[in-house]
């Protein structure tokens, strides 16, 4: 080993604390990068494989009833590659062990297994057998949420009659990677599930023999989705088509794609922040090192070491930290990614979700690490290289100080000599102080924005489920019913209040923009379901005209006063012109509302309703549920509390995990910055502090001088961190303004306090670690040294 390498090793050992701090921050940056990127690639690859191997459709539509012969006409549409006609029905299920009724989405499959669009992956059991009437396959998510297995059975209402269904297999479909009841935001796999059964059984049960009510289409390569959709709408118009849509509007696809986008954005922002801090820390560290080793650099130069050799020597120091950080980061990243994948497995149901790691990903991580290190090291190393040897032989000229800003504006009298030292020191290295403070602020911001997600979801739930949707139970009828059913419902034991609603599927148009949506007709004095305005006040529905929520209005580019074209997709399918009267502002979904009787007038129909919202007496709710289960006319029952509970369970857990990580990351940054800052201060001012000790100051006093600087920086970082955290949260709320849900911008005081606390704890910890060194300060050695 060469002597220069020995020097390298001893310098490394000498600076191990600081290098470790840098390594830790770097490792975090690389770990977040590897975690997010590999999760992203894993999900993306799983999605791609699943969709292509199991032939996920491109265009979908639902209709009232069409003869099977129409399939040929659909196939003939230019651009259509394959057509899968199906019978699809939502029915009430009685699941063993579940009080509330569950909703089953029954989907027909060919009696004999044949390749189809949205093909099934059979996890367990077998395919249905021809001629066996009661055999079904059920979705894996539903099966595991209810602990159902092959051989178990459950009851379903098939066209008014109870039938026992026997589970022969557990299956998955690319259609239901995210398995959620339509029009809901949170999955509740206990109370909503998909069941596949023979078309020969399902068809006759719902009067669909030789007919279908659902179509899945795949497109030829290069076909125009828009074109096919409009041809399909034309073709199926007479058959009660609810409007064709592409993958973008398919719920499962949309959720997954949104999640991927989120991973992609987080996966580039977080690592970037970390690596900027790494560059900064390395820069300060190496600059200081080159500063203290001026004389050594000069000697090396005097004896003929080349600039290249000297530059490389200092670069190697950074390289060691970077290599260690990168390796640790990659390792931690892979481990984290595999846990993240496990969390994803709860939400997204794939036949197989494997961690996808490849060389390019790892190489990119290495390149990014090396890049940030170079960014940080280069200016310091260049300074070492550029030192003129004759110049470097002289000790560094004494630092020039001047009265700090505080003193200049006349506060001198307020400052003790010790605090004057602190202030002047900060003032002298102004930019370093600013960056240090910013880095600490950033770590506060990371915690704030991490907790913001929790605050926002909390708020979202409270707005949506305590202000907008206040019903305990929603029942949906198989077919629209006469309004007097509401009185029958009100008669049921345990029902406290019933509010009917009418839901009409429409295509809402303004200019060239359109959107498929259900217009919800509500009673003007409704209490259970009330659209709200942006101030969260319940909105009184106008006697005429539409109310849209802001997101839907934004999608259509509509403003109050605009006349919207409403193409009704039900009954006589009239095309109406209805003014947009006002805007509602709930955080979940897209919404269009009308006064119930106004809606009836427009539809030229009598007093019909699609379902009802109910308030129930919790004490006798279970009995009510079992009664509801038995009413054949009801196709779906959803229970708000149960859905929320299941949501909080999964979401709460994953939120807890991600908060823990963000707190960890933020602490690492705060620790790294404060520790390094204090160590640098100690190295720059060791002599000064030793002299003060010799002059009789106590250790506590010089500790205060040393750490006061970092303390001041940390305190200054708090308001900046809050502001930055709020800005980040704002960015996130913008980013999470989706069709499916929108995060409100609320940051609770508790979140700020928590963030400040975390970072303060990290800062105090690092300060104590450095202060311990003062105890071992060798006064004579420091005073002897030439510097």
């Amino acid at each position, binding site marked *: 080993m060469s002597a220069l390498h020995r020097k390298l090793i001893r310098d490394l050992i000498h600076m191990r604390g600081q290098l470790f701090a840098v390594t830790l921050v770097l490792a975090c940056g690389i770990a977040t990068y590897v975690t997010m990127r590999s999760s992203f690639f894993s999900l993306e690859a799983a999605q791609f494989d699943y969709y292509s191997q199991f032939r996920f459709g491109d265009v979908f539509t639902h209709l009232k009833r069409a003869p099977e012969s129409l399939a040929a006409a659909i196939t003939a549409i230019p651009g259509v590659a394959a057509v899968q006609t199906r019978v699809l029905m939502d029915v009430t299920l009685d699941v063993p062990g579940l009080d509330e009724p569950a909703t089953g989405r029954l989907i027909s499959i060919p009696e004999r297994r044949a390749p189809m669009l949205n093909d099934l992956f059979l996890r367990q059991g077998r395919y249905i057998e021809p001629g066996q009437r009661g055999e079904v396959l059920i979705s894996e998510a539903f099966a595991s949420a209810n602990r159902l297995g092959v051989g178990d059975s459950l009851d379903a209402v098939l066209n008014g009659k109870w039938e026992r269904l026997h589970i022969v297999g557990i299956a998955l479909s690319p259609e239901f990677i995210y398995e959620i009841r339509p029009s809901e935001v949170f999955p509740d796999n206990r109370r909503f599930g998909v069941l596949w059964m023979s078309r020969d059984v399902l068809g006759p049960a719902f009067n669909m023999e030789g007919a279908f009510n659902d179509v899945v289409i795949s497109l030829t390569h290069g076909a125009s989705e828009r074109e096919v959709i409009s041809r399909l709408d034309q073709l199926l118009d007479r058959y009660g088509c609810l409007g064709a849509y592409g993958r973008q509007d398919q719920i499962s696809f949309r959720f997954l794609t949104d999640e991927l986008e989120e991973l992609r954005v987080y996966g580039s922002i977080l690592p970037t922040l970390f690596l900027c801090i790494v560059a900064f820390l390395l820069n300060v560290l190496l600059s200081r090192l080159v500063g203290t080793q001026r004389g050594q650099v000069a000697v090396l130069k*005097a004896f003929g070491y080349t600039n290249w050799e000297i530059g490389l020597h200092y670069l190697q120091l950074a390289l060691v930290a970077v290599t260690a950080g990168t390796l640790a980061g990659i390792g931690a990243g892979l481990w984290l990614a595999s846990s993240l994948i496990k969390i994803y497995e709860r939400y997204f149901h794939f036949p197989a979700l494997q961690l996808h790691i490849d060389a390019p990903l790892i190489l990119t991580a290495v390149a990014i690490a090396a890049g940030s290190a170079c960014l940080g090291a280069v200016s310091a190393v260049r300074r070492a290289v550029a030192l*003129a040897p004759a110049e470097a*032989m002289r000790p560094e000229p004494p630092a020039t100080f001047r009265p700090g800003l505080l003193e200049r504006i006349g506060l001198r009298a307020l400052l003790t000599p010790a605090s004057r030292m602190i202030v002047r020191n900060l003032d002298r290295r102004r930019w370093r102080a600013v960056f240090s403070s910013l880095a600490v602020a950033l770590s506060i911001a990371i915690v704030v924005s991490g907790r913001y997600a929790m605050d926002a979801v909390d708020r979202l739930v409270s707005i949506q489920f305590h202000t907008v949707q206040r019903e305990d139970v929603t029942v949906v009828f198989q077919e629209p019913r006469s309004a007097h059913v509401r009185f029958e419902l009100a008669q049921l034991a345990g029902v406290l209040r019933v509010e009917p609603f009418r839901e009409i599927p429409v295509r809402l148009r303004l200019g060239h923009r359109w959107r498929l949506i259900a217009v919800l007709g509500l009673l003007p004095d409704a209490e259970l379901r009330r659209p709200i305005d942006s101030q969260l006040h319940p909105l009184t529905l106008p006697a005429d005209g539409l109310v849209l929520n802001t997101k839907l209005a934004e999608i259509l580019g509509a403003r109050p006063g605009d006349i919207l074209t409403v193409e009704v997709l039900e009954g006589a399918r009239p095309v109406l012109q209805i003014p947009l009267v006002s805007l509602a502002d709930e955080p979940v979904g897209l919404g269009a509302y009308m006064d119930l009787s106004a809606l009836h007038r427009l539809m030229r129909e009598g007093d019909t309703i699609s379902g009802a919202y109910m308030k129930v007496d919790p004490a006798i709710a279970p009995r009510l549920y079992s009664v509801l289960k038995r009413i054949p006319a009801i196709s779906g029952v959803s229970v708000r509390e149960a859905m929320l509970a299941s949501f909080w369970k999964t979401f709460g857990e994953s939120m807890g995990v991600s908060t823990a990580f963000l707190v960890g990351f933020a602490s690492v940054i705060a620790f790294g910055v404060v520790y390094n800052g204090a160590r640098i201060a100690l190295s720059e001012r060791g002599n000064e502090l030793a002299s003060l000790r010799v002059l009789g100051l106590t250790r506590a006093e010089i500790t205060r001088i040393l750490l006061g600087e970092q303390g001041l920086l940390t305190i200054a970082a708090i308001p900046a961190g809050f502001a930055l955290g709020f800005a980040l949260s704002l960015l996130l709320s913008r980013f999470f303004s989706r069709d499916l849900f929108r995060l409100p911008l609320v940051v609770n005081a508790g979140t700020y306090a928590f963030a400040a606390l975390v970072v303060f704890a990290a800062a105090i910890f690092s300060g104590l670690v450095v202060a311990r060194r003062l105890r071992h300060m060798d006064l004579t050695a420091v005073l002897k040294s030439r510097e």
Partner: protein
Amino acid sequence: MPPPQPAAPRTPDPPPPPAAAVFHIQGVTKVYRMGDVQVHALRGVDLDLYAGEFVVVLGPSGSGKSTLLNILGGLDVPTSGEVHYLDHNLTAAGDAALTRFRREHVGFVFQFYNLIPSLTALENVALVTEIAEHPMDPAAALRLVDLGDRLNHFPAQLSGGEQQRVAIARAVAKRPEVLLCDEPTGALDYTTGKLVLEVLERVNREVGTIVAIITHNAAIAGMADRVVRMSSGMVAGIQRNVKKISPSELSW
């Protein structure tokens, strides 16, 4: 006391023919610019150094001694004038060429030793022998300065004089053609200073290295072949000692 100067020289130049000059510098000036103030550190210096010579440079503080030595050693370049080392023209040399020149031909000893604190005595010497072409064994170099038993001590574990001897070993170990020492005894006491001087004299005598020493201590001039006196950035006079005194006989 320097011995009396011989009778006024008949020839203005020193006796040996210019052809034998190893260093040849002519009209060298060095101007430092600090803001609008110009410091003339050297104002036209002519000097030749010959093979095997032992030269002592004397002069008051600020007279340009260190500046001259730095230029000779290729640590710095003159503002104007010519610097030649054998057939190398150092005047026009760039940074890479100067580095190679230092690496191959020059050894330095500095007033403040400038050892690498994180390396032991042996390693400090090895640092230089590793990049030299015909170096001595580092341990042998340390034995030459009587530090054979302190090989594995770190600078912080050595006294000032010992550190300076390590610095000399480090400079000598590469077998340079020229050894440039800036106040090598400046920080040392009387006995240690003499010890260091003896080492330098031995290297000069045994290896034939050109040795140039800067000092404030006029007494040291006695051991030189020639004494160069500097004042205000110029060579005020060059004096040749007829009889060299061995360092052990020096006293101050």
